[in-house]
């Protein structure tokens, strides 16, 4: 749900951007001819027309796209079409899977000079690395944490969700993985594999007097927040930017000391890529501050993994204010869940929801 909403929003935003095509503000470099095929969600950064044009002018490499509409489809395409793709956008959780199946090859960081300013925590994420080699260039990230009404004292812990001061003033996300992650972090556990699920369950049940609402879409969150139905909620960083920028809501995005619940998308190069050279160049382009600033300010984008790119944004940019570099250091990153754990998570959340409804 999370991913789809985020991407759909980007899709909508970039639809209006076609008109902005026709830039050549990037310096012309020696042409290394060829074509690369990028596999990504549609309308998600790599296929911005102005950027592809500028990239071709500067490197001579033509960028063509193939799209997927679910992460499972992306993996299937990589498995069944070897040699068809040069660069693929994959979530950290899926990257581990692609890496385990040897679908993607290690990255030669010497060909990606912009990696030097990418947050070390993202680059070293276990989902992107195997046997000391990096398998993806971290590209963009975001996190789920708390959103509070402006003027309230900023919470320093997820414990605020159970704080009696906010009786009936809390909204949780109706998403098993998200709420269990928050409760696991609060109880000092690994959110991807909490050892003590009963403790997680009791913690979530303890929020009952406070829980007013379980939200499932950004629109629902915005409407209920605007109607003052709750003051504290779990929320997405990107959603907070949009709530402030588009809906002008008085939202404070707060990352507590336990750290945010993070996601990061990386750029991987398939093991069978015919033009790995060009793919490295395009990956470097994608984390280049020049590309990122234009993408973020014109179309709207998640936070860049490149700290230098975030710093290149205008100081009053809401996304820059919300996605602070220090959050990267404390956040945990969502990994892929094995089926039995996913089922256990879902059953736990159903049980907690039934308890809330009593």
């Amino acid at each position, binding site marked *: *749900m999370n991913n789809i909403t985020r991407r759909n929003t980007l899709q909508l935003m970039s639809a209006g951007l076609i008109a902005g095509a026709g830039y050549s503000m990037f310096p012309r470099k020696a042409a290394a001819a060829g074509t690369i095929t990028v596999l990504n969600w549609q309308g998600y950064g790599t296929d911005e027309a102005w950027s592809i044009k500028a990239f071709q002018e500067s490197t001579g490499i033509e960028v063509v796209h193939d799209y997927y509409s679910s992460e*499972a489809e992306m993996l299937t395409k990589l498995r069944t079409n070897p040699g068809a793709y040069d660069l693929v956008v994959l979530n950290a959780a899926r990257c581990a899977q692609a890496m385990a199946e040897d679908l993607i090859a290690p990255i030669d960081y010497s060909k990606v000079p912009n990696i030097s300013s990418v947050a070390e925590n993202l680059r070293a994420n276990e989902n992107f690395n195997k046997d000391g080699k990096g398998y993806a260039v971290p590209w963009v990230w975001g996190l789920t944490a708390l959103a509070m009404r402006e003027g309230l004292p900023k919470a320093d812990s997820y414990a605020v969700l159970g704080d009696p001061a906010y009786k009936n003033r809390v909204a949780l996300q109706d*998403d*098993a993985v998200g709420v269990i992650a928050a409760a696991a972090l609060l109880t000092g556990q690994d959110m991807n594999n909490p050892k003590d699920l009963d403790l997680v369950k009791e913690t979530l049940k303890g929020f009952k007097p406070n*829980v*007013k*609402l*379980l939200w*499932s879409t950004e629109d629902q969150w915005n*409407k*209920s927040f605007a*109607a*003052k*139905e709750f003051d504290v909620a779990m929320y997405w960083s990107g959603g907070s930017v949009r709530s402030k920028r588009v809906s002008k809501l008085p939202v404070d995005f707060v990352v507590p000391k336990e750290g945010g619940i993070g996601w990061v998308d990386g750029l991987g190069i398939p093991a069978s890529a015919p033009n790995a050279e060009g793919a490295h160049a395009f990956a470097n382009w994608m984390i280049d501050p020049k590309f990122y600033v234009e993408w973020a300010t014109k179309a709207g984008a998640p936070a860049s993994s490149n700290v230098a790119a975030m710093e290149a944004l205008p100081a009053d940019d809401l996304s820059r204010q919300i996605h602070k570099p220090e959050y990267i250091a404390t956040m945990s990153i969502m990994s892929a869940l094995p*089926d039995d754990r*996913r*089922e256990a998570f*879902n*059953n736990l959340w*159903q*049980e907690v*929801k*039934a*308890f*809330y*409804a*009593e």
Partner: protein
Amino acid sequence: MRSDAVLNEAVRGPSGPRKHRMLPSWVATTALLLPTYAWLTLAVLLPLLTMFVFSFMSATPMGKAPITFTLKHYRAFIDQPYLLNIGWTSLVIGFWTTLLCAIFGFLAAVALARATVGRMRETLLILILLPFWTNGLVRVFSWTMVLRENGFLDNVLHMVSADTGSISFLYTRYAIVLGLVHGYLPYMILTCYIALVTIDDAIIEAAASLGARWWTILFRILIPMAAPGLISGAVLTFVPVIGSFMEPRILGGKVGVTMGTVIEDQFTQAFNWPLGAALSFTLLAVVLAIFATFSGVLRRGAAA
């Protein structure tokens, strides 16, 4: 007039000229029923059967995970006893929704059938049905505008008396029932209306002339004679209501946990189609069991 017609029939006798050159009746019956049953097989039976097969699988048959057949999903109510509470909640919501629909729907149908005539009646019928041509989601969302704190209802109340607190009841079971009653009322109105218009005026006039008061007419004549309509309306309401998920989710907030939302979660969030299918079939079995228990009442009512 009527006696004349009967007389003519008797004179002409049973062997009219129409009887000749007729196909055997079973051929005609089969030919006429075939498209219906073919369509039912394609549109209802096959999808149901697919879901039934899914409900025995160990995992959703997508991707490359090996699939084995298992009965474990049908043990969900034993393994996860909180589901019993949720199921009970759904039945209670279904009961109240059906009851309220029956009361309001029947009264509206009586008003429509007995107090209006001709064009006026048609116009009223269309006015009742018109709002139900809009999307259900839109109607449910408009209720959230009305019911929420500082919403329309509160504003109206504060116009009358400014000091009173909020009477908002969004995110309660009452809100869910309200939304569901609003959504399913037209089925009840229509089925009751169809049953009521067939009642001969003469019967009611006779009752009134013999001194029956309005409540006697209502309980001894109208309700028993319109019982088939009431019962089919109740079935049409009860069955979808206990499986509904949109209204509980939007109007119920955190109390909006019903069998419908649990099943929907299994399909959309948990990606556990087999469990969702197993829960659906369990629910179907419960509904059938309820109807079987009351089948005597239902049959008598439908025959009346």
